[in-house]
């Protein structure tokens, strides 16, 4: 037994040392380059100091054009959005942003049925895996998500997909080669509806376990005198009808602890105006024509005090 342990323990240590050396190599690669994966989902969040922040999921980085807002209002705009994630994950990213930036003047918090989900699966996990290295972002608060393991923080190699590793090692681009400043993670969808217009995905409001995350936004904005606008963005007519959403969303907001009492406005951009399939790429995203229509309405909305 003694000989067995004497032989097996150094072997395990040797494996861990090789892994650690490999990790150091990746750490140094990541320190030298500021790469990001896709649509600036978890880009470098330091020293942006934007006046306006658009917070949400893919409906932000597909539908809310930050450049149009900058041009029209003369304000610096940033996007803090994550594809396919609910408010829990986006709140984490928003918190990370606030650590390294001045508080914004306005926050537009996208609010739709997709965003109303609590911790779920780690959709798009590959986009944030690189931040386990160097502890570039403390991702331990992802622990409530399915698929997250506590040791990822300590053993980043165990978390990461090997194809991403090879990209890191070869300095290959992990996604968009343009800088975040150039695109801000915003990308319009092309014209043409690419889905089944008559068969939209059913949507349901999942109010469980999310009020605390939503309240986090509200508390932060109230405490720092930030104007907070919750936006229900346009969705396809069928989805909108099927969701039967207004009453549920407003009712839900009213049920949140502090939502309606602070400097908070709820703006609904769903109407029959958006029942035209020519404005959509699919059931959940506007195409470039839809974005122009929506942004025109958004920028001229008198309910927003710029």
């Amino acid at each position, binding site marked *: 037994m003694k000989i*067995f342990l004497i032989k*097996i323990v150094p072997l395990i240590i040797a*494996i861990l040392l090789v892994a650690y050396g490999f990790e150091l190599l990746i750490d140094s690669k990541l320190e030298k380059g500021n790469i990001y994966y896709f649509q600036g989902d978890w880009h470098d969040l330091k020293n942006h100091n934007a006046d306006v922040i658009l917070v949400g999921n893919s409906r932000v980085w597909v539908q809310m054009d930050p450049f149009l807002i900058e041009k029209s209002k003369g304000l610096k705009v940033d996007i803090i959005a994550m594809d396919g994630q609910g408010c829990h994950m986006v709140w984490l990213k928003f918190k990370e942003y606030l650590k390294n930036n001045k508080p914004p003047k306005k926050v537009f918090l996208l609010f739709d049925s997709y965003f109303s989900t609590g911790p779920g699966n780690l959709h798009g996990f590959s986009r944030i895996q690189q931040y386990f290295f160097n502890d570039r972002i403390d991702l331990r608060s992802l622990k409530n998500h399915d*698929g997250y393991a506590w*040791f990822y923080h300590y053993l980043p190699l165990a978390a990461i997909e090997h194809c991403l590793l090879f990209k890191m090692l070869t300095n290959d681009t992990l996604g968009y080669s343009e800088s975040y400043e150039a695109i801000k993670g915003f990308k319009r969808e092309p014209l043409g509806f690419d889905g089944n217009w008559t068969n939209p995905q059913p949507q349901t409001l999942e109010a469980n376990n999310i009020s605390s995350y939503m309240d986090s936004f509200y508390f932060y904005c109230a405490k720092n005198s930030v104007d907070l606008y919750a936006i229900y963005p346009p969705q396809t007519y069928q989805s909108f009808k099927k969701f039967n959403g207004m009453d549920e969303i407003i009712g839900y907001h009213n049920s949140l602890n502090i939502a309606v009492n602070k400097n908070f406005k709820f703006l609904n951009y769903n109407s029959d105006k958006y029942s035209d399939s020519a404005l959509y790429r699919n059931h959940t995203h506007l195409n470039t024509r839809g974005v122009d229509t929506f942004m025109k309405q958004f920028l001229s909305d008198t309910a927003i005090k710029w």
Partner: protein
Amino acid sequence: MLFNSFEFLFFLPIVFCLYWFVFNKKLHWQNTLILIASYFFYGWWSWKFMGLLMLSTLLDYAYGFGVASSDRRKSKLFLWLSVINNLGILGIFKYYNFFIGQFSRGLAILGIDMNPVWLNVALPVGISFYTFHGMSYVFDIYRGKQKPVTNFVDYAVFVSFFPLLVAGPIERANHLLPQVQRPRSFNYIQSVEGCRLILWGMFKKVVIADSIATIVNEIFKHYQNESAVSLIVGAIAFSFQIYCDFSGYSDIALGTAKLFGFELLSNFKFPYFSRDVAEFWRRWHISLSSWFRDYLYIPLGGSKEGKFKAIRNTFIIFLVSGLWHGASTNFIVWGFIHACGFLPLLLLDRNRKHVTDVVAQNRHIPSLKEFWQMLTTFMFVTFAWIFFRAEGMGVAIGYIKRLFLNSIENPSQFVKVDSFKERIELLWIIPLLIGDWLLRRNERKLRVPQSRIVRYTFYVLLGFLSYLYLGDSANSFIYFQF
């Protein structure tokens, strides 16, 4: 708990140390520890189904005493009770929805509208394995090959021993129980062999099977848009995925058992080096095929009662084997295809041609004839795997149809290599084939380089690669679902 999880990497050394350093004074303590560890291992997946495992264990333990009765009628009664009990558990949790669905469809054809009641329960992990353990114990007592075990803990360890609990090998009472009841002392060579098997199994599962799985999943998901070459690549890749997945699991199971002083039955003997379908089934999932042979094929008369009965029995065991894998028409068709492949060998009395020898027995490379035999057997098996992998018969038929039609439409694709770009993971098959080829004469003894430096470098490399790929390896083992 999965073998390819970090939880297991903590669990195993803890149980190992407790077993050899704390509970090593008495055999009963060691067995009790194994039982607790096994229930913990199982409960990690779902505590809800622990009760089912315990109930099944308790009932078969009790039936064992009844079956051992000298009164033959009473003995037979308890045997049937055990069979009904085990097949009943399987029937409810695994097959109920399938059969009720088929039944209601059958009635619908006759114009009778039935509103079936569906069961909305998850399939308990390992149910097909531990029920078969229980049945083999009762059968062996009935046949006089085994005496009932008086110590419940010993019997429960036989059924629930964590390395084999969720995906086998399906052990026999007369093989494992004596090991449970015999005092065990630490054996250095056995433990080193165990570690090697764990390392090799982990490499097969985490590095090869899981990286190939991404290719397979993509091709089977979008098969309608794939070229014929891609579909062939998908089918071949699945052949290796399922082999590495399941044999990797079995290697880890065998290796883990060795660390605790147990020798489990071999489950794989390099099946893709088989020269005909009969040999394939002597090398693939051996513990299941031998279970069906001993407890179904032979009791039905085997091949001793004429050709007709031999053919009938062959088809029965292949169809039942298919059904054992899952409640789906796909698996039954998969079994049927293998039965059809077995049939010519049976008719020509060539089904026992390769019982003891291996390919290239005394040579380094196979003869041309052997190579051709291996290739054709592999192609046949790969074709059958399409039914096994496809989600539904429609997909399987669509896949094959697309493969043939696209081959005819665009024959030039077969001379291009574009189809293999972006599929670099398939290269892992090469070290697998080399490793398997070198080991083919004795699957239980991993041959390692003589030089200590080379050997340890090899171990570190395997360990490091497994660690590196573990991030992608959230997949469970394919055979967990059975």
